[in-house]
């Protein structure tokens, strides 16, 4: 059947199983929106800014594991997506972003609302395509989804000129796709796996270091089984939180700059470090030269470029983490038929770690007068559903959430790790809520980051997205303020927000409910009421203004040089 390019695009999305898209109309996508008007099989959500649309698709993708889809018009619409795309790229989130483009005949002529979005997004997409002929559109869409979701996932942009949307063609969606330059290596080499397991079972002080790859690769169950079999302690990066239950005694929580004392000590003293789906980011390693100085490093990753990029690796395994972990478990069962023998072999190490846990547990000083932000995080965990989804923005509140929430399930934390994008949280929560209308979805943000995309209150209310917004308001750009306090002699340059905002009125102006807690004993009440109230609720907590995120490894220092909570 012949149809126009706009319709073909929608048919492609349908065949890829897309049920929700986030998009903003404009001149060069008006044909697409005209088709969408009568295309009922896909739910379209209109954000109030293209950046938020992309973050929403990102939140949708992180929560579901499916490919998130966002649409924007050419020129400013397309350039507004950049921060969202770069955020997804850094955290390897599968997405397809479709941008309108000026008609092919006008490309390069500085036409109205023209931007070279292919050129602009080249370094922040996994791949991108300019569609020059409507006949190529189905194959390009098939490739785009395939590239986005396979291997190390990532965002793919498809630039679709207006005339291509209008042109007619027969629609056939290809069943399979073949890209000769793209063959991700998914199966871990059996010999390497064998060697790794030998190394691990012979270790006296092993530690597993888990990154977001385990969540993206849906390998949490395999990871847990492997770690439990050998009783190896597990620490995770920010992106890895939820891959291993933090309430398990083997969990060491977060490592790195704001990691736990015991995770950083364990990594600094281990003899074998097993990195799985992690990329040795500088926020994790601290000073590279003194990172895991006594350890042989096993590194499992689907992306060969991650291996030996930042640190030396003794045993690389390129492959899908789920496949590799399943093989590792099998090998461990053979090497160690009696699990207890292997577990007992590292008992002294476990005892040493227990000692570190007892010496410096995660803590903060509770106050009777002011609300401590960490306390709010703990109460949120206690008073929310076990499968609640938590989006965060970026800054102190993000680290407190990572430290004190206690994640036990994959895909329940949505946070911008690599790029550290302020303004990410609210739209990401919106995307997750659109995917899971029945689950509790909250966003924890600071007063700074919230203001970067607060226009999305309108989207949330309009689409009846039941998002609970938690603002830890310290009237500061808290993380930068903390650095200024510690490293810049308390010269608080441009970090005090000064203008106090009436967030309650703000919420009400958009048709949401606003609640506020200023005292410790109001915290539970506000949270309970917030979750019990139907529809979007903004909960503002006036928290201790100069609270610091601790422990902290100063930038460039070794992991053992932590500033600890007193």
């Amino acid at each position: 059947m012949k149809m126009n390019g706009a319709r073909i695009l929608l048919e492609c999305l349908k065949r890829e199983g897309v049920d929700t898209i986030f998009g903003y109309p404009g001149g060069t996508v008006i044909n697409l929106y005209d088709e969408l008007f009568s295309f009922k099989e896909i739910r379209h959500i209109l954000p109030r800014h293209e950046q938020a649309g992309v973050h929403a698709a990102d939140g949708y993708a992180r929560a579901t594991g499916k490919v998130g889809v966002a649409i924007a018009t050419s020129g400013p619409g397309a350039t507004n997506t950049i921060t969202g795309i770069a955020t997804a790229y850094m955290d390897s989130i599968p997405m397809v972003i479709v941008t309108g483009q000026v008609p092919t005949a006008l490309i390069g002529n500085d036409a109205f609302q023209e931007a070279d979005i292919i050129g602009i997004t080249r370094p922040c997409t996994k791949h991108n395509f300019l569609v020059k002929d409507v006949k190529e559109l189905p194959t390009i869409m098939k490739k785009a989804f395939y590239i986005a979701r396979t291997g190390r996932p990532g965002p793919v942009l498809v630039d679709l000129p207006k005339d291509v949307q209008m042109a007619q063609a027969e629609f056939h969606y290809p069943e399979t796709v073949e890209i000769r330059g793209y063959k991700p290596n998914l199966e871990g080499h059996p010999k390497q796996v064998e060697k790794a397991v030998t190394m691990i079972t012979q270790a006296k002080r092993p530690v597993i270091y888990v990154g977001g790859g385990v969540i993206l690769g849906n390998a949490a169950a395999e990871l847990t089984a492997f770690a439990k079999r050998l009783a190896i302690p597990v620490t995770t990066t920010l992106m890895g939180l939820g891959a291993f239950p933090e309430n398990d005694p083997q969990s060491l929580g977060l490592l790195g700059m704001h990691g736990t004392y015991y995770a950083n000590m364990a990594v600094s003293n281990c003899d074998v470090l097993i990195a799985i789906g992690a990329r040795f980011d500088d926020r994790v390693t601290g000073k590279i030269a003194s990172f895991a100085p006594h350890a042989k490093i096993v590194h499992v990753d689907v992306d060969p470029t991650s291996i030996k990029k930042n640190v030396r690796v003794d045993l690389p395994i390129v492959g899908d983490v789920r496949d590799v972990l399943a093989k590792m478990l099998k090998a461990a069962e053979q090497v160690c038929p009696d699990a207890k023998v292997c577990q007992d072999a590292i008992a002294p190490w476990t005892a040493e770690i227990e000692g570190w846990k007892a010496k410096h547990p995660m803590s903060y000083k509770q106050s009777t007068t002011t609300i401590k932000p960490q306390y709010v995080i703990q109460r949120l965990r206690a008073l929310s559903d076990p499968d609640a989804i938590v989006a965060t923005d970026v800054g102190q509140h993000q680290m407190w959430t990572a430290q004190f929430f206690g994640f036990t399930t994959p895909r329940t934390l949505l946070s911008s790790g690599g790029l550290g994008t302020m303004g990410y949280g609210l739209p990401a929560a919106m995307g997750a809520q659109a995917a899971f209308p029945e689950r509790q979805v909250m966003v924890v943000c600071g007063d700074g980051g919230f203001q970067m995309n607060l226009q999305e209150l309108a989207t949330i209310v309009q689409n009846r997205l039941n998002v609970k917004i938690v603002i830890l308001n310290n009237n500061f750009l808290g993380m930068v303020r903390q650095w200024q306090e510690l490293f810049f002699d308390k010269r608080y340059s441009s970090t005090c927000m000064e203008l106090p905002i009436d967030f309650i009125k703000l919420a009400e102006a958009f048709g949401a409910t606003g609640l506020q807690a200023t005292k410790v004993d109001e915290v539970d009440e506000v949270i309970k009421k917030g979750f019990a109230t139907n529809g979007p609720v903004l909960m503002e907590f006036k928290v201790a203004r100069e609270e610091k995120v601790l422990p902290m490894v100063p930038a460039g220092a070794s992991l053992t040089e932590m500033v600890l909570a007193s």
Partner: protein
Amino acid sequence: MKHTIAVLVENEFGVLSRVVGLFSGRGFNIDSLTVAPTNDEALSRITLVTRGDEQIIEQITKQLNKLIDVIKVIDFEPENAIEREMVLVKVSAEDQSRAEVLRIADIFRAKVIDVTPKSYTLEATGAPAKVSAMVELLRPLGLKELVSTGPVVIGRGAKGWKG
């Protein structure tokens, strides 16, 4: 350490900028770069010369392989490869230096491709070391213009690399 790397890519618009953008974005060096279609018109072959220690060269080849449009990457070992480049060089040639220019050209088997009363333009092909030796001998005579293709490289032996 210098490395000559051959990259087989899809012959499509924008591919070169992906390769070059990778180098600039990640702070890798490009000393020279040549690109042209191969005997298979759907493919282009890029030859680039870069520098770095072992870890950097490994990252470069891995990052190149990661690009969707890159089909194959070979980091040639000098002993298993033949490298050639071509230079066109315009050199001052007046009075007694005219003969000297021709002598040097002769020694390096360069061709004279343009003559004026004040200059010769030479074409020389060969291993980069040979070509640069010739250029260095010509330099004191007055180098007016130099243009080089940068090296291209092919493996030794009977086995061909498709494309």
